[in-house]
């Protein structure tokens, strides 16, 4: 049985990775699980400058989900090079750097400054960020911007470029096609869903930033639907995520058309979840006589 997954020029040892923003740069969870058994680590978003992030509380639990507004808190690319790279260099796990920004130049800067790092196996481009030059609407809601941004980054790297799609659009397949046209090696979906929780006692948003991002099992059906739609509209691999809490959830994503998956919020509940999910996928494959990940495709 072959659990490997090919994304662009690289090979992941199994389809299960950890979702950006939920796993930092891997150090913390490294104390709890064997990182070498992960298919990939998708890092916290990196931006050129350090960002402190938003006011607290940044999190609130919702029915079967969590709402967060971390605000891309990250050390910035310079401190990343000195503080995080030495640790990443010690790993033999696929590391995908999640890249965010407020302008196209921001993304370019991060790729430029990390281009020659051997510990970075690929990039996941977080296009759910507001584009300050386009009135603050997220890059990821406009196919023209998505194609331009992807094409611009494509020229800078041979490493796999994964464009991470937001579900907060009318037709996600249009955005996925734009990423493919721009030269993306894969797309991942979904990022968080727009949501809000109001504190009725204080009569204000629980999260000071207001509207924030919903994740966890509540949004799993949204992620599966997006994965199904996207995988029918592009021919590059799709990485599915959103609310995976067990192997069966991940298998739904694979059947929907994903070639790999990520576990995010589920890690907070059970740090061992990605490993359990990978084992569960393996068990399912052997029970059902499947040889490789592509064998999940074509049923729906």
């Amino acid at each position, binding site marked *: 049985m072959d659990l490997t997954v090919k994304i662009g020029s690289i090979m992941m040892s199994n389809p299960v990775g950890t979702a950006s*923003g*939920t*796993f*930092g740069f891997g150090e*913390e*969870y490294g*104390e*709890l699980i064997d990182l070498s058994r992960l298919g990939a680590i998708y890092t*916290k978003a990196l931006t050129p400058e350090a960002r*402190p*992030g938003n006011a*607290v*509380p*940044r*999190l*609130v*639990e919702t*029915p*079967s*989900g*969590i709402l*967060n507004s*971390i605000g891309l*808190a*990250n050390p910035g690319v310079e401190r990343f090079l000195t503080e995080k790279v030495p640790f990443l260099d010690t790993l033999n796990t696929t590391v995908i750097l999640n890249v965010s920004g407020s302008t196209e130049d921001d993304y370019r800067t991060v790729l430029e400054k990390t281009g020659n790092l051997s510990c970075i196996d690929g990039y996941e481009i977080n296009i759910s960020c507001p584009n300050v030059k386009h009135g603050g609407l997220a890059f990821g809601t406009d196919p023209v911007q998505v194609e331009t941004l992807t094409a611009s980054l494509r020229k800078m790297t041979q490493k796999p470029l994964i464009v991470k799609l937001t579900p907060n659009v009318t037709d996600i397949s249009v955005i996925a096609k734009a990423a493919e046209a721009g030269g993306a090696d894969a797309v991942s979906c979904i990022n968080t869903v727009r949501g809000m929780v109001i504190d009725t006692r204080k009569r204000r948003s629980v999260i000071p930033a207001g509207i924030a991002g919903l994740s*966890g*099992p*509540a949004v799993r059906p949204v992620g599966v639907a997006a994965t199904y739609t996207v995988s029918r509209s592009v021919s590059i691999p799709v990485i599915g995520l959103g609310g995976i*809490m067990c192997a069966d959830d991940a298998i739904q994503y694979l059947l929907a058309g994903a070639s790999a998956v990520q576990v995010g*919020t589920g*890690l*907070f*509940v*059970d*740090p*061992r979840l990605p490993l359990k999910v990978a084992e569960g996928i393996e068990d399912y494959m052997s029970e059902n006589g499947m040889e490789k990940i592509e064998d999940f495709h074509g049923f729906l």
Partner: protein
Amino acid sequence: MQQFFSQIQNLNPVATGYFRLDFHWPIDEVPRAGQFLTIRVGDVSSPLLRRPFALSAFDSSSRTASIIFQKIGKATELLSEMNPGDPIDILGPLGNSFSQKVTAMDAGKKNHIVVAGGIGTGPMLYLADELKREKKDPLLIIGCRSEHLVPYPALDNSIRTIICTDDGSAGFKGNVVDYMKSNPDPDSGTVIYSCGPKPMLMGCQNYAEETGKSSYVSLEEVMACGVGACMGCTCETTDEKKYARVCKDGPVFSGGEIKWT
């Protein structure tokens, strides 16, 4: 830090709405005062996140760990309905501890005041116990709204303890800062440790600053991962615009590190 399953040994009320939960601690690493753990309550998707609780005691001979928790929402309600023998899913010990944070100079001081309020009581009972075992004769000051909230069964009568109640139904009438002000401690070398509601922490911090004492606080913030990975639980520090993670860089901070707003 490890994730492990344990069994509930005892679960008893200690005050109105407050419970003490004892369970076996199977791992080698000994949790220190100030550290916490997270518990997964239930196995459905709501409540979803693990819930953080500070250690309130640790018996190294029987390897029994304890927490004191307040029934405040769904997860703590479910926890309060569990029974001895039930399994619990624990991740810990998490965060730093007072012993790790306190400077050698402060540790060597003569007077130690441990101030506790509300759900901050658990970790301060443990800290007072640690200080007692180090022969530092701590003074424990516990603030409650009213007598029925005082966790009498969890108190150790070999520790000097002052109870303060807002309504005067037990001990000193007034809050913990009122008490400290009306019973001034002449030793400017005294170290004050506090855990409880934010206004109480600020009161202790201001009092310490005004009287030149040292101050350490244990903070709380809504948490998701509990291990420092998600950047969810930060607090603002005086060090430039840097946010510190309460779960990993804390929960214990020196009072001066925190930007009090």
